[in-house]
């Protein structure tokens, strides 16, 4: 074996068997360390302290039996070879263990020292081989991801160049052009944008693969987000004379999701629906709730297209899946859109699936978690089984100067949120998760479980600290207001939980009103989706 004396952890509760195996080991090796323990718990403690060369394991221990025993060991030290000591009667189980990754088994009472030494030596060799295969596999995956990422970036530079000069020509900056020429250039631009979208998808998929895709959930109005997606995709639908509508249940509460990413999912599904629906068909986006799953909102995009054959249904979310029957002029994308969409939904803790009837369209559905204000509020606004006497809702509004710079504004808002968290009493006040989608005005809410006097002090502190932030001074204004949240009537028959729900509903309504008044359609997103497709 490799460096120096092998270190063997022998897990055997029968002292006679243990002594015998130890004897055989000492006979087989000139130099060997054997550590013998009788129970699984002791073994796990030993493995915590030191990693042995090999584990020799009896399956039936005082504190663990059968398959559970080797699973626990292998979970603890996946890289250490395990050899099982089985009795005559449990050879079947020992074989099963070998299928599940145990290196070998030896039947007790039938072990010679030579056989033992040889079995252990090969077990170590095989485990080493497996390990290096796994390392190679990981390296190759990493290399593939780096390669894709590098290539995608390099492709962008010449693409940017084409984009720049085509738009120069189209905008007449290099002289007037004839209408026909302009048409041709627009066709070039469309293809450039398609290529750009493909590169974006490739990078996103690579990121998803390597676990680098991230979501930043906020408290959002999903209906508004759907309207936004529908408005963005309407021109594309109109080009094909496809009706695009949203069927929204207005009673849907706020959702806890990343607005940019969720918009991406909707755009993706709608675009897909339009692509596979013939002219004069329709695409409908709906949002609803399901009684059996009260913590989620159910979202779906249905089309009246030709549907997906039964056998392809499990494949559509696979990477690089493309419809084999795509015939019309629609250029297929890379086949990554649905894969990315599903990954994004998974990251939110939701799930995505598809149902389809060939000939009568497909419905892609997914779930997103609802924003549970009551759950957040419960520990803050209750004290000894009762609702706190005074509750105040503080609203902190950051408004950018007329032409603020989008990138830095987002950063500024984040910085303000951090400062805001420092201005409150941790155990008595709660800064709610950021609200709204991607509008320029940022509103934060603080629920303060205290009276107006202390809130006034807190508001002064917010005005002083957040207002003094240099980034904010240069790019926006701050407004801090507060209102008392009405308490329950003196003789309130409701349970505490219902009362908390009441407060949550009240606050939610105020947040919703605030969201409704917002303009959340940024130029960048308009561009990203209107031009990208």
């Amino acid at each position, binding site marked *: 074996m490799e460096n120096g004396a092998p270190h063997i952890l022998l897990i055997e509760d029968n002292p006679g068997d243990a002594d015998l195996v130890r004897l055989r080991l000492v006979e087989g090796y000139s130099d060997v360390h054997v550590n013998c323990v009788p129970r699984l718990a002791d073994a796990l403690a030993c493995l915590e302290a030191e990693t042995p060369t090999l584990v020799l394991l009896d399956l039936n221990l005082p504190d663990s039996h059968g398959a559970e025993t080797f699973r626990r060991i292998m979970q603890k030290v996946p890289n250490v070879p395990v050899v099982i000591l089985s009795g005559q009667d449990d050879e079947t189980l020992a074989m099963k263990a070998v299928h599940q990754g145990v290196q070998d088994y030896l039947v007790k009472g039938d072990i010679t020292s030579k056989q033992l030494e040889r079995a252990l030596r090969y077990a170590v060799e095989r485990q080493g081989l497996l390990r290096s295969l796994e390392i190679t596999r990981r390296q190759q995956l990493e290399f593939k991801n780096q390669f894709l990422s590098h290539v995608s970036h390099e492709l962008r*530079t010449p693409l940017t160049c084409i984009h720049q000069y085509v738009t120069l020509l*189209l905008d*007449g900056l290099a002289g007037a052009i004839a209408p026909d020429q302009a048409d041709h250039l627009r066709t070039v631009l469309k293809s450039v944008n398609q290529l*750009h979208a493909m590169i974006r998808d490739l990078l996103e998929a690579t*990121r998803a693969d390597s676990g680098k895709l991230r979501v930043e959930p906020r408290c959002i109005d999903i209906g508004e987000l759907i309207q936004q997606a529908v408005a963005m995709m309407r021109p594309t639908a109109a080009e094909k004379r496809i009706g695009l509508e949203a069927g929204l249940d207005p009673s849907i509460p706020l959702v806890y999701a990343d607005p940019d990413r969720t918009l991406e999912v909707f755009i993706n599904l709608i675009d897909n629906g339009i692509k596979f629906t013939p002219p004069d068909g329709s695409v409908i986006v709906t949002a609803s709730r399901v009684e059996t799953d009260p913590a989620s909102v159910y979202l779906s995009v249905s089309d009246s297209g030709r549907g997906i054959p039964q056998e392809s249904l499990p494949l559509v979310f696979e990477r690089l899946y493309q419809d084999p029957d795509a015939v019309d002029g629609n250029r297929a994308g890379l086949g990554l859109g649905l894969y990315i969409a599903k990954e994004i939904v998974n990251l939110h803790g939701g799930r995505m699936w598809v149902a389809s009837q060939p000939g009568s369209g497909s419905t892609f559905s997914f779930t997103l978690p609802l924003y549970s204000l009551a759950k957040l509020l419960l520990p803050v606004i209750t004290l000894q089984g009762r609702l706190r006497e005074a509750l105040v809702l503080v609203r902190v509004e950051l408004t950018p100067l007329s032409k603020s710079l989008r*990138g830095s504004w987002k950063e500024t808002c984040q910085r303000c949120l951090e400062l805001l968290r420092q201005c409150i009493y941790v155990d008595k006040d709660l800064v709610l998760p950021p609200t709204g989608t991607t509008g320029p005005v940022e509103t934060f809410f603080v629920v303060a479980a205290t009276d107006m006097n202390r809130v006034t002090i807190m508001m002064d502190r917010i005005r002083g600290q957040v207002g003094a932030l240099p980034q904010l001074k240069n790019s926006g204004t701050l407004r801090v207001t507060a209102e008392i949240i009405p308490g329950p009537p003196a003789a309130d028959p409701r349970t505490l939980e219902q009362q908390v729900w009441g407060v949550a509903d009240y606050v939610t309504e105020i947040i919703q009103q605030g969201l409704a008044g917002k303009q959340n359609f940024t130029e960048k997103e308009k561009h990203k989706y209107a031009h990208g497709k």
Partner: protein
Amino acid sequence: MRTESNSEKQPLNRAKIMVVDDDPDLRQALSLRLRANNFDTVNVCDGYSAIAMAQKEKPHLIILDLGLPAGDGFAVLKNLQQYPALSGIPVIVLTARDPEGNEKRTLESGAVAFFQKPADNEELLGVIRASLQAGWGWGGALPS
């Protein structure tokens, strides 16, 4: 026609913009567009020249690529902060790199905005104008 009249933005006309990009074609395309929008332009192709040229020309705004020879974009941002006369110049980063990781870092290093290539021309021009206005508002840092 996407170019708009600049008549109501009189004070912004003839502001000087320095374009830092190692790709000559991209530099030229951007300069053409900026000049068509009544800006003066200065072009440089690497990080070292960016600082030297900024000292000489005192531009009102810098458009900066990140991947550059002789000192990348981050080094340029850092170096600009070393000179009081240059530290107030608004810098817009325009790069092929991903916003993930880079956007936050550039903004923290003093850039006013981050664009990924290819950027929407109108949006870029909008941010240039907004930055110049804000820059003028800061007073003193920019030559009149």
